[in-house]
Every structure is written in C-alpha cells, then in structure tokens.
C-alpha cells in the first residue's frame, strides 16, 4: 500500500522543490487519507520517499566551509581577507539552497531544534522558512514523451486576427523555440505599450500545449495574474490552467498542470519542470531588485528549456545585450513589435521647461504649461492623468489645481498605491464621473483608458527613469478611436532619462514606419 502512495505522491508533486513544511501542506490538502496522518507518520512517509531514491533531499540552508576555496592567489581576495580580519572571521559560509542567498540575507540564531547554532534565510522568508534544520525535497519531473501533433505554421494560422507586426513576432518566437537547444536559451519580445503582447504569445502557447509541453507564465504582480487568468482560460479552453499566487486556496495550489499562470515568487517552488517560461514585465519591480526571482525562474525551467521575456521597456543591461553582435556569447535574441495593434504611431512626449516649479506649485503662482493643459483637456472633454513623483506632493498639486479653478473640486481626485479607493476612482474616471486623476507611479502600468492625456509634473525626479517615463507615455493613445493624446513632461531641467525615453519612443515609431506597419500617417 505504501508503495503506491509513494508513486502517487511523486506523480502529484513532480517537478517541484519544496520545504518540509510545504510538502506536508501539499499532502494534507490533497487527499483525505493523508489528512489523517500524524506528524510522525508523515515523517516516515517522507523518509521512505528519500530512501526509495525517487526524491532528492538536502538541508535547505547549508554551511559551506570557506577554507581551501582559493587555489589561485588573488591580490583582491587577499586584500578582502585583510580588511575583513577585524570582523567575524567565520570559517563557515552559509548558503541557501532554496533561493541561492548568500551571507548578507542569512541570519544566525540559536535554534531549539538543533540545540545550537542555526541560521535561516531572510530572502525567501516570505515563502516559508529555509533553515539549517529544515529539509528540502527536490521532486524530479518525469520526462514527458515529445510528440509533434501540430507544426508551427498551423499554430500561427489558428490566430488570423493577429496584426502583421504581431504575426512576425509570434513567428520569430516559434523559430526561436524550434532552434537548437544548446544555443541561446533566452529570448526577448520588445513590444511597445498596447501592442498586445499577450496575444502575441498565443501561437507559441498553442504549439507548446498541443505538443505536450509545459509552460509557466510568470508575472510580478498578483493583480496581473488575476487579470490574465480569464483571458488565458478563454484562449485555451481544452487545457487546465493552474493559477498560483499567494492567496490561492489550498486545494488548487498543488495542481499539476501543463499551463501554469503564477506570480514570480511561486516559481521558487518549481524545479526543472517547464519547457518554456514566459516572464511577463521583466523590467518591473520586484524582479529587478530581488536576485532570488531570476534564480527561481531559471531553476523552474528544464535544463534544455527556454525563457521568453516580455516587456515594453527593457532595462539598460538587457538593451546592451541586444546591441551586441549576433555571435557574441552575451547576445540576447529578440524581436521588436514597434506598433500598437491599431496601427497608429505612439504619441511622442513633449518637454516643457518651467523654472522654479516647486516654488510656484507651493505658492500657487500660475504655471502656464499645467494650466493650459488642463484647460485644453477640459475643452476637449478628455480624461487626464497627472503624475507626481511622491505621495506627499499629491495634496500640493491638488490644492494648486483647486486654487486656480474651483469647479475641479468634483472632477479631480488623487490616487496612490496604498489608497483603499484606488479601484473605485479608476472606475469613476472610466465612466466619466471624474475627469482628472492625480497619481504617483502606481498608475504607470496596466491602466487602459480611451482618450487619455498625460502630464508628468516634475519629470526630472529620480523616480521617473527611462522605463517609467516610457510606460507613462504609453498610457495615452491606447484605443483605435482616439489614437492620439498629449503627453507632456514638465520639469525644471531636462534629464537624461527624459531624453532617453523620448528617443526610445521616436525610434520605435521610426522602425514601425520603415517596416510598413503604420497604416496611417
């Protein structure tokens, strides 16, 4: 009886890397039989799993001895050792097997279970505690037989509604996947805001799913997961879609499906499982700031698996990699979708310099750009987004607008990340009850409204880097009916980021014209 349990457990949890507590959680929420097991019996079951060789087991946090690490004498290593001499000259270096964290994120404590010194990893603490006394189980994934039910062209043709640009990108992605597996494993799709990058991936997804491959679609934020889930479900009704994020109910959390849509953090629980990982919004927080997430994503794909990055604003390091020559080892294969699905060019932002901006905002002296922008939008009846660098500037700007024009009281509102009425206010703007939203960078992504005009106040602030400005400018001109929209960067000085953002947008428009995608002048 035990044997078949082991088989079923391995089948159910294949392709995952889980802590002891996560395995117990998974087993308990899966079968009623297992729910009744005592802790001790659970431990025995897990022990059997390890002994049978089906599952690999290590400590989730390991101490690696530092001695004998450097056979090659290096000047800098020697200097480092001299400088470190005053501090704790620990002979043991700790390393987290689960998230790849090093000393900086690992905290030493006294642990009752180990009756001694123990350490835990703070970097992956959100997903469970990885510690010296906690076991880490790696469930290997069964090698699926590769079938070839459909060809790439068939997959492409089953989506006739893609525009020419989207089609070209989808074809490029399919070619990349079919290429030899020992070459480049990363691919970037550089699609401007509103180019329909989700739809571009559908042919590739269909090709993979029909041919029995597994795919992970990872995105940084939970609300994007929730927004995408119905769309993917509708596009692939014959395949079970597992939607994973922090709040997934336990009975769904451990589904073993071919198509998985999850937040990037969830990728930490997978191990060599997916043939393709699609990383959506790879330039967004937290993927860029947390090293654990790229590590997790890399580990979630099979050794011969590929990664596709989707973004509208690749970070400078990715841009540098794309500019290298094709045969360079760091080169990143990519494809650009420079035009929106409706075929109109991107609105190009305009820079307006206003001196002593801060002062004038506070003392409510007239600022020509801002006032004429608001008047203009009011006259044309267009909704407006005004971006400010930080939450504390929202009330200043709000008072400023009210001071100059009383009837904006009911038509303008402020929004920020921790605002509980955020959704309601965006809805109000959509329905026309509000005409202006003053906001921080929280609104730079994902919001699609027709006919918006955008003004960035104090665009020289450090929080407005190139990616942020391009994303903000991408809010305008989203719909086919109103494809233009004023975008103004108002600042005291012109920063490199502002110039780079405008340069990037102009370059995309130029590329689109050259490739003939722009159907309107």
């Amino acid at each position: 009886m035990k044997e078949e349990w082991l088989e079923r457990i391995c089948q159910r949890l294949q392709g995952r890397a889980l802590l002891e507590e996560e395995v117990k959680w998974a087993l308990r929420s899966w079968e009623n039989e297992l729910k009744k097991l005592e802790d001790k019996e659970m431990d025995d079951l897990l022990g059997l799993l390890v002994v049978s060789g089906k599952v690999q087991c290590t400590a989730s946090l390991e101490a690696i001895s530092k001695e004998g690490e450097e056979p090659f004498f290096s000047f800098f290593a020697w200097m480092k050792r001299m400088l470190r001499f005053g501090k704790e000259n620990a002979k043991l270096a700790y390393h987290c097997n689960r998230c790849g964290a090093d000393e900086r994120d690992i905290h030493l404590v006294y642990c009752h279970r180990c009756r001694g010194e123990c350490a835990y990893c703070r970097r992956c603490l959100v997903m469970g505690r990885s510690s010296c006394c906690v076991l880490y189980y790696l469930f290997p994934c069964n090698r699926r037989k590769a079938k070839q039910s459909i060809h790439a062209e068939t997959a492409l043709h089953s989506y006739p509604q893609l525009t020419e640009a989207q089609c070209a990108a989808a074809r490029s992605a399919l070619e990349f996947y079919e290429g030899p597996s020992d070459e480049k494993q990363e691919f970037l799709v550089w699609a401007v805001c509103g180019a329909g990058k989700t739809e571009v991936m559908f042919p590739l997804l269909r090709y993979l799913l029909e041919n029995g491959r597994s795919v992970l679609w990872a995105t940084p934020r939970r609300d994007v997961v929730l927004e995408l889930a119905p769309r993917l479900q509708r596009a692939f009704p014959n395949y079970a879609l597992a939607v994973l994020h922090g709040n997934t109910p336990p009975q769904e959390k451990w589904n073993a499906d071919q198509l998985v849509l999850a937040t990037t953090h969830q990728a930490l629980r997978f191990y060599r499982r997916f043939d393709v990982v699609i990383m959506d919004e790879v330039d967004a927080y937290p993927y860029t700031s947390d090293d654990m997430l790229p590590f997790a994503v890399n580990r979630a794909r099979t050794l011969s698996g590929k990664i596709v990055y989707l973004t509208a604003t690749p970070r400078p390091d990715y841009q540098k990699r794309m500019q290298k020559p094709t045969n360079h080892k760091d080169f990143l294969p990519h494809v650009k979708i420079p035009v929106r699905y409706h075929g109109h060019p991107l609105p190009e932002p305009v820079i307006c310099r206003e001196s002593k901006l801060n002062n004038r905002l506070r003392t409510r002296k007239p600022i020509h750009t801002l006032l004429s922008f608001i008047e203009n939008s009011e006259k044309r009846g267009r909704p407006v987004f005004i971006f400010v660098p930080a939450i504390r500037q929202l009330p200043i700007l709000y008072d400023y607008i009210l001071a100059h024009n009383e009837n904006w009281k009911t038509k303008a509102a402020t929004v920020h990340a921790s605002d509980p009425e955020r959704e309601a206010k965006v809805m109000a703007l959509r329905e026309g009850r509000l005409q202006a939203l003053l906001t921080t960078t929280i609104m730079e992504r994902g919001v699609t409204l027709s006919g918006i005009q955008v003004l960035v106040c104090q665009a020289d602030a450090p929080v407005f880097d190139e990616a942020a400005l391009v994303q903000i400018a991408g809010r305008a001109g989203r719909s086919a009916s109103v494809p233009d929209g004023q975008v103004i960067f108002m600042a005291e000085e012109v920063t490199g980021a502002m110039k780079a953002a405008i340069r990037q947008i102009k370059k995309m428009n130029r590329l689109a014209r050259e490739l003939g995608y722009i159907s309107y002048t």
Partner: protein
Amino acid sequence: MNGWQSVVNGILNLLYPSLPLCSLCAQPVRYVAQGAGEKGGTVPLCAVCKEQFAFILDNICKLCGRPWIADTVCEDCARRTERYIHYSRSAVRYNEAMKGLLAQYKYRGDRKLADVMVSLLLRAWRLHYAGMKVDCLTYIPLHEARLLERTFNQAQEMACLLAHEVGVPLYGLLERKKATEKQSKQDRTSRLNALQNVFHFSPEEAFMLPDCPVIVLIDDVYTTGATLAEAGRAIKEGIPQANVYGLTVAR
C-alpha cells in the same frame, strides 16, 4: 574589472558612509532623529515605519497599562478579584502595524526583528521601570512541542536581549507542562479557561534572588492578561514574597 570596482567602492564607502537601512522596510533612513536619550541607536527606523506604531504614553490604566484615563483603574481590572501582579505596562498598542510585525517575528520566525521588538520594550522600560530596582527578569515559557515547532521562544529571546541592555539578570522561573491550543486562535472565554494551572514554578534558578524580589515578566502581547496573571500566580506560589510586574511590547 570587478576587483578594482570593489576597491573603489570600499574607499567611497569609507569617505561617504552609506545611510543605515530601516530594519523594517529596508529603505535608507534619511533623518536620524537625535534625542529622546536613545542609546538604542542600533535599530534604525525610518520615519514612515516609526509613525505606524501607536506608542502608549501616560494616559493608562494603573493596573493593566491600556490606554485609559490617567491614574485610574479600567473596568476590566476593577472586575478582577485576585491580583497576582502589581501592574503591567506596554510599549505600543496592538494596531495593524504591530500585528504585522509580531506575525512576521513570531509566526514567520524572522528573528532579526527581535532587535526592533527590544527597542520598543526599551522605550517602555525607560518610561516605567528604569527608576525601580528590579532584581530579575523572566519570561512566559512555551511548551516543548510549540518550542520544537517554532524553534524559539519569542518572549525568552526578547527578555534575553533586554536583560543585556538594561543590566538586569534573566532567570527562567516558569515551566509549561500542559500543552495548550494556540491562544491566538481562541476567543476570550476559551483563553481564560485554557490557562488554569498551566504554569509551574521551577526553582532551579531562583536561589540567587533576595528575599522580596522585584520580578518583571516579559511577554509579546497582553490581550486578556490571563497569561500574565497565571504566571504571576505560579511565581507567587513558589516565592510568596515576590513582587511581580509585567512588561509587554503590545497591548
């Protein structure tokens, strides 16, 4: 040239020391508020995080330390017939921010936050117990099973660090023989009932105490006060002359 880069980085760090990071949100702390006589400057907190805590100052119930009219006794305490501890004080109110911090520390096991908790305890200590001659500190014990599960006793850890800071010895005077369900998952009446006879006095470390010792009990949060009262009762069983006070982080 990563080697040279790190040398340049090192020199720059010497010339322009980088700002300390807030222990809670890991943002650089811009304005280091000098003042309030805080020697505990090793726990930098940025202004935003500091604002989240609702510090309890002087308008408190004399007995249980909850925010009340100053120098009076609140209705819950007036109802209590037997009093085993003289009074209890707390550093902050148990608001959302505190709930989050405690959950992160106690349940998730992020023990680096112990420093933040102890800095809050220190505040309360300086306000209420600094002038008193305290003979020892002690903590609310955990049952062995819970200790194995969580791998640490948060009250013990905080008490240990606090003892270090204020120079008062820490003795473990209590033991918990009976396993109780997690208090956090029970309502008020269940909590009050669950704690009958759960603590035992353990005399091993008590031999160093003077005759009428002043003992301060440390715990993380005071909800009903039942835990502290029971613990006080157990201590008084073992040392009838003891004067027991309570100190918790949250109320």
